[in-house]
């Protein structure tokens, strides 16, 4: 693999879940490439397709209940074509994931140490002693206090923040190049969240990891991401460097999200809320999915889904009325 090729290259990814009465169109044509060492945040509300996109990178969707189209290339491997042993080799070794709720993601009947050792020995020819030494080093790296003792601890014996650190240690056990993080701090308290975000940032820098982080919280994206991709109804509606997205959002949805935050609003004033609710993924409108809630929508918006338009260096948005809105 040459260095210029992106570490992650997702093209026209669609994911449809067919298990229910009506097919649910969770991801509707996502194209995203991430360079080696880059941190990208997928930002969106529930049902926007951000977690489904992330899970496609580990080919985690159940085969018989989901239909995937498009291509997902990660570190030169065609992820959607992997299966069986090749997929198991890829998971954890090339790309690994940390989840929102470590208590559910970790196995409750094995100690943290045993789980890390198992992961190392699955992927590498390491003796038990070597794997145990690596597990200890990993717990030190994620700064778990008294790591020798914590290797012997079961997940339920740890606090929430400590469990998330252990989860990160497990994810990094086999030195993956890609780290996928699905709302890694959403279940944590504010004072713990910032510690985990700083830890992720530091590990990313130190290990040169390529990171995709899924979050609903713009603040979290701002703390760790180089680039933000805003998702709505299974599409990336705007993507750009984090500064651009915060200071110069171009898509009406991104603008609305930023304007409706209670962050700097005057106490007692009214928030500039986006009306309506996110669309039903089983019955998406033919045009722009945001049009029914958009204050700028025109007739053309309801007819066809807008393509991606470059609006600056590395900055693009999917909106038919970009030019008019910029001029206004």
């Amino acid at each position, binding site marked *: 693999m040459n260095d210029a090729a992106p570490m992650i290259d997702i093209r026209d990814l669609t994911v449809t879940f067919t298990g229910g009465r009506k097919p649910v169109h969770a991801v509707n044509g996502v194209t995203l490439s991430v360079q080696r060492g880059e941190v990208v945040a997928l930002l969106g509300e529930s049902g926007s397709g951000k977690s489904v996109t992330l899970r496609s990178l580990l080919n985690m969707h159940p085969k018989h209940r989901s239909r995937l189209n498009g291509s997902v290339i990660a570190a030169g491997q065609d992820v959607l074509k992997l299966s069986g042993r090749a997929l198991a080799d890829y998971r954890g070794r090339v790309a690994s994931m940390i989840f929102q709720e470590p208590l559910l993601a970790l196995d409750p009947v094995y100690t943290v140490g045993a789980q890390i050792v198992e992961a190392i020995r699955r992927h590498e020819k390491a003796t038990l002693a070597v794997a145990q030494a690596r597990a200890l080093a990993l717990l030190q790296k994620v700064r778990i206090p008294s790591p020798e003792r914590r290797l012997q601890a079961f997940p339920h014996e740890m606090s929430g923040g400590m469990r998330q650190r252990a989860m990160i240690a497990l994810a990094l056990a086999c030195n993956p190049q890609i780290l996928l993080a699905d709302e890694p701090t959403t279940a944590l308290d504010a004072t713990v969240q*910032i510690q985990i975000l700083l830890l992720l940032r530091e590990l990313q820098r130190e290990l040169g990891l390529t990171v995709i982080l899924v979050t609903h919280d713009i603040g979290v994206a701002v703390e760790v991401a180089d680039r933000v991709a805003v998702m709505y109804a299974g599409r990336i509606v705007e993507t750009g460097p984090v500064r651009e997205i915060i200071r110069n959002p171009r898509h009406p949805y991104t603008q609305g999200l930023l304007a*409706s935050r209670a*962050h700097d609003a005057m106490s007692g004033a009214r928030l500039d809320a986006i009306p309506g609710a996110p669309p039903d993924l089983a019955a998406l409108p033919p045009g722009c999915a945001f049009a029914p809630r958009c204050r700028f929508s025109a007739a053309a918006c309801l007819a066809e889904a807008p393509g991606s338009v470059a609006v600056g260096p590395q900055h693009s948005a999917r909106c038919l009325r970009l030019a008019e809105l910029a001029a206004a």
Partner: protein
Amino acid sequence: MKDVPHDPRDRGGPRQPLLSVNRLIKHFPVNKGLLGRSKTVVRAVDGVDFDLLKGETLGIVGESGCGKSTTARLLMHLIPPDHGEIVFDGESVGHDLPLPDYRRQVQMVFQDSYASLNPRLTIEDSIAFAPRVHGVPRREALGRAHDLLARVGLEPSRFAGRYPHELSGGQRQRINIARALALEPRLVILDEAVSALDKSVEAQVLNLLLDLKEAFGLTYIFISHDLNVVRFMADRVMVMYLGKVAEIGSAQQVFAQPSHPYSAALLASMPAMDPDARTETAPLYGDPPNPINPPSGCRFHTRCGSVASVCSQVEPALEDAASGQRVACLMRQPGSGHPAAMPALEVA
């Protein structure tokens, strides 16, 4: 304080607090020992005092385990307190003021909009349920339910006959708000009421809460872990840590100039919104300690950056600080023995 429309139920006038809470304590037993004797307790709420003024919004913030939700449930008498008194507009709850009369004036909205609605009742029946229990005839209760639906922005003709599972989270939370208002309460306790909602829907519900507060002359207790939302909603803020009040004061003051080191750390933990001014060091290390065995003295001393030897021995009382807040920190209390505190005033 804004003018509150005159309410015939108002007793002590605008100056008298709507709610006064004195030394509220709730310990939950865990690990029942032999013969059901409990060995240890979770000190969930451990001596909480505050006043709630008429027409204000009091925000309660703190991390999980700090006792904010237990406080809310104690205020509603959903769980009986071990100790302490709640005075509602001059009347002691459970003594001068019987519980049914109290509950008619205090209502609550919970975080989980689905779990707090009966799945087998239609929306209109859910809203009309409490008034009917309190003796309002069915027809009148339903009529009022329809009015309330319209007030919270849901077309009565479209929504009245539906069931909770047919609605989105934002719509269900509007229903819960309508139901809380059905008894015409004076105080509404909002316990993480917008936390489960998407950001775009959260803003709509916050606006609705502000509108309803004005229209009905309500007083709110607004509990949230989201400090941005609390800053937006609250007139005053109470910061809790491990079952105790760390600091209480005007929202403006607490957010601009927190007096307790914990409040300061909590505020500094909020993610920056500026990519060029990211947080560089975490204000605190580790998780909050376990409320089963809280630290001695000041409960925050194990994580505090300004800790002195006295902090593990002396429990700070909640006292008026120079900046106008009430603060439980030895550094703010003259003569406490903390090196950063002012010396005690000489008594002539």
